[in-house]
């Protein structure tokens, strides 16, 4: 069954989109990530333009994060104050990201920007996660688990504007979460992702937040950042396809439930190891696209101003 997407201006198979939503939803439920970093490249792969893919995926992530956050709120795993500070930074960052995106779209470099961002950030995060999880697996096997300090004190903790975050049991400078929110916000807008895969490690390793509140708080601020991206993309580029977003969402919701059930059967470090491999796989695929000689060296693009 086909459906014509009004903004993407192409006809797609409904079941293919539902299946993609379901598959990515399953993985995001399994690993506790948003899945934007998988979905956006997939959408581009089936022929949706990067501009529409990035904007529509932001819209879909809003919904995915809301349903995730509700579950975490029930378990009181959201640090609202920290989330609010991250959101302020994220709002500014994602606004800057959309401006960069629009400017580069006009000079024909948006593909390059999206792909290079993917390779760099998926590469770094994937490698770190893989190393960490392999270590954890070996440590688990040899049974010599060691407990470090809660968090280490560095120059980052000497910054001004200190704030107390009760749920996270932290007393740190507000500049730190503001900066992290800003930086991740830029990338969220450019890459069409929620940014959880960057936000979660940053919260654990840079802010020193307890792992229990990390995912819920990250999801909480992702709602606002992706909502901001959705709004700005709709206004600046008219590239948000709500029909596509709804289809993806429907599949993702069901998939995520199955994935969450599955995740109970695997150990944390094994899950992280598998996720790392998947992240590195996407990174390698996009990396190859950047260096392999393209089939056609020439590409075409409509010049703006001929909408409707």
């Amino acid at each position, binding site marked *: 069954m086909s459906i014509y997407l009004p903004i993407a201006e192409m006809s797609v198979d409904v079941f293919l989109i539902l299946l993609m939503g379901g598959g990515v939803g399953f993985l995001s439920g399994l690993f506790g990530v948003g899945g934007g970093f998988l979905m956006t490249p997939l959408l581009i792969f089936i022929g949706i333009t990067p501009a529409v893919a990035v904007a529509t995926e932001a819209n879909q992530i809003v919904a995915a994060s809301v349903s995730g956050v509700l579950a975490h709120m029930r378990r009181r795993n959201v640090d609202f104050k920290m989330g609010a500070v991250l959101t302020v930074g994220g709002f500014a960052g994602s606004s800057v990201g959309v401006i960069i995106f629009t400017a580069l779209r006009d000079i024909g470099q948006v593909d390059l920007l999206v792909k290079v961002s993917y390779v760099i950030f998926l590469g770094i995060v994937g490698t770190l996660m893989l190393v960490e999880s392999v270590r954890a697996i070996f440590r688990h096997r040899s049974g010599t688990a060691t407990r470090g300090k809660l968090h280490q004190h560095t120059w980052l903790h000497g910054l001004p504007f200190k704030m107390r975050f009760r749920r996270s049991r932290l007393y740190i400078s507000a500049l730190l979460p503001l900066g992290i929110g800003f930086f991740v916000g830029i990338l969220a807008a450019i890459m069409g992702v929620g940014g959880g895969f960057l936000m979660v490690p940053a919260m654990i390793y840079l802010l020193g937040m307890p792992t229990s509140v990390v995912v819920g708080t990250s999801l909480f601020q992702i709602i606002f950042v992706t909502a901001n991206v959705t709004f700005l993309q709709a206004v600046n580029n008219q590239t948000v396809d709500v029909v596509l*977003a709804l289809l993806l969402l429907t599949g993702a919701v069901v998939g995520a439930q199955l994935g969450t059930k599955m995740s109970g059967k695997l150990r944390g470090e094994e899950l992280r190891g598998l996720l790392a491999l998947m992240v590195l796989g996407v990174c390698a695929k996009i990396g190859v696209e950047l260096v392999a000689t393209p089939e056609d060296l020439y590409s075409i693009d409509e010049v703006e101003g001929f909408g409707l």
Partner: protein
Amino acid sequence: MIRALITVLALFMALQLPADAARDDSLVADLSEDTIGISTGFTGASVLLFGATDGEGDVAIVVRAPNSSVVVRRKERIAGIWVNADELTFDDAPGFYHVAASRPLDDLLPKGILEANEIGVANIAFSPHDFLSDSDEEAFRAALVRNKQRAGLYSETTGDISFRGDRLFRTRLELPANVPTGQYDVSVYLIEDGSIVDWSSSSLVVEKVGFEAKLTEFAFEQAPLYGIIAILIALFAGWFAGFVFRKV
């Protein structure tokens, strides 16, 4: 001098639209539909074109969507990575272009007439924005056509026109699902002995209808409100999903 005169004369004749060549209504043609609506289930459309001639002759049909500006970019390897480098913008690139002819175009008409009337994918008159060397411009022009062909937006068919007797002809015009919207021009040329004897032109409107049309109009004309509603839908869908699956 005489040669120059002949060239000018030939050019002049070539540029004369067949309108004032023997226009004696020796050709009539029409489409089975004059509007194509793009709705939710749209997967492309097929329009029947039929007509009659007053005798022998070949027929060429050109379907053309409104023009737009298209930028063609060429990738170059920089530090091991393929990056868009040079670019050339062309105006007057039809969003969709299809030619159906009863015989190969080069057998029907001389190059000059094909070019003057933009009959044939190779004869579309794109106008480049910048001046490049001839070979470069040709490469960009070819790339534009090649990319449009790959997307199924530019095409040529030969021999797909069926004739009944000498007088009646018909053919199906296929429009793919990714056709641009707008008012298309469908021109039919009657060709005899290397010249256009008569021609007729009709228009075909391709437009989004119903829900698709309303949504697109909304997205473009009230972009901020569209953005807010997109967010509200997502918020509600997320809340609803969370609510439903809590009970399960």
